[in-house]
């Protein structure tokens, strides 16, 4: 079951240093209201599963004055925070046969580069781009290179944005799929392919802001 989630970033003490460009703004993903969301979906012949978590922390680095310079980021999600609506199933997800939260407590998405940046809309107050984020995805202790399509929107701080988060805001959303086999997740015998899909769809919708606190993640 498994989920997948991700988060950008994290070693907080090294966050700024991790950004290759000193001109990029740092947008910290750390919404205390839990409005960020990672959703994982499994479709299988016997059962469809939808799970989610709002426990996402990390950062995004992006320069709205020079969007073509790309960006970077890192997001993290604790495996223990995944919620499928059934406590016993959540226990199984965290168990050794699946995500093994004890050994691999975090799911991490690291964005090294934004490419194929295409402007969707631009005003004085906001900029939206379609992008392809290239980086790595770590799940179940396995790290693999990944490229995911997404959309990012930069909102300059104003009265409307300040109602949601302090400072300038960078919102991002993406949908992608991961194969359990790629991350060496075998699951309980006979379950993958019948009750759990061989691939898991992941949807991410997050907001970071320049005024948010750096997330304290380890």
């Amino acid at each position: 079951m498994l989920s997948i989630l991700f988060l950008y970033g994290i070693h907080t003490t090294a966050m700024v240093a991790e950004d290759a460009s000193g001109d990029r703004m740092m947008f910290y993903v750390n919404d205390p209201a839990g409005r960020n969301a990672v959703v994982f979906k499994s479709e299988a012949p016997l059962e469809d599963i939808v799970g989610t978590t709002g426990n996402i922390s990390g950062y995004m680095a992006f320069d709205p004055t020079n969007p073509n310079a790309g960006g970077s980021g890192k997001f993290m999600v604790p495996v223990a925070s995944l919620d499928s609506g059934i406590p016993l199933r959540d226990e199984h997800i965290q168990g050794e046969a699946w995500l093994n939260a004890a050994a691999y407590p975090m799911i991490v998405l690291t964005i090294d580069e934004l490419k194929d940046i295409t402007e969707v809309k631009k005003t004085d107050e906001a900029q939206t781009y379609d992008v392809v984020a290239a980086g790595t995805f770590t799940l179940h202790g396995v790290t693999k290179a990944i490229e995911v399509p997404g959309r990012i929107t930069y909102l300059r701080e104003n009265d409307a944005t300040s109602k949601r988060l302090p400072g300038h805001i960078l919102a991002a959303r993406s949908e992608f799929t991961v194969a359990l086999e790629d991350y060496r997740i075998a699951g309980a015998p006979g379950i993958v392919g019948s009750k759990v899909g061989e691939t898991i769809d992941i949807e991410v919708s997050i907001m970071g802001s320049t005024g948010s606190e750096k997330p304290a993640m380890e």
Partner: protein
Amino acid sequence: MSKATHILLITSAIISIGAVLLWQGTGGDYYTKFQVVEQVERKIDPNDPLAAAGFYDTESTVETVRRDEFRFGLLPTPSGLFDRHILAVLSVAGPFWGITFISIFVDLKRRRKS
């Protein structure tokens, strides 16, 4: 078949029918749930600065919600003996059928002896 076995049989049937009706009436899920996680369509607020900025492709978006809702499932998913998730068609009707079958078995054995 003894009168007691008859009563057990009828009771099991009634409880089973009731459990199945409750199961179907609350969604017909495999597992009992007290909280539902599902995706619903949400109309985007036109005043949302993200909408004005082009963050969304359409006038609505899919939102994942968690809400308290009881769904009586076919199978129980308890984390312990006293977990409320033990409620399910199988765990409610199963014990009655178990007792009923034992009673039938005892009746048959008695009849053979006599």
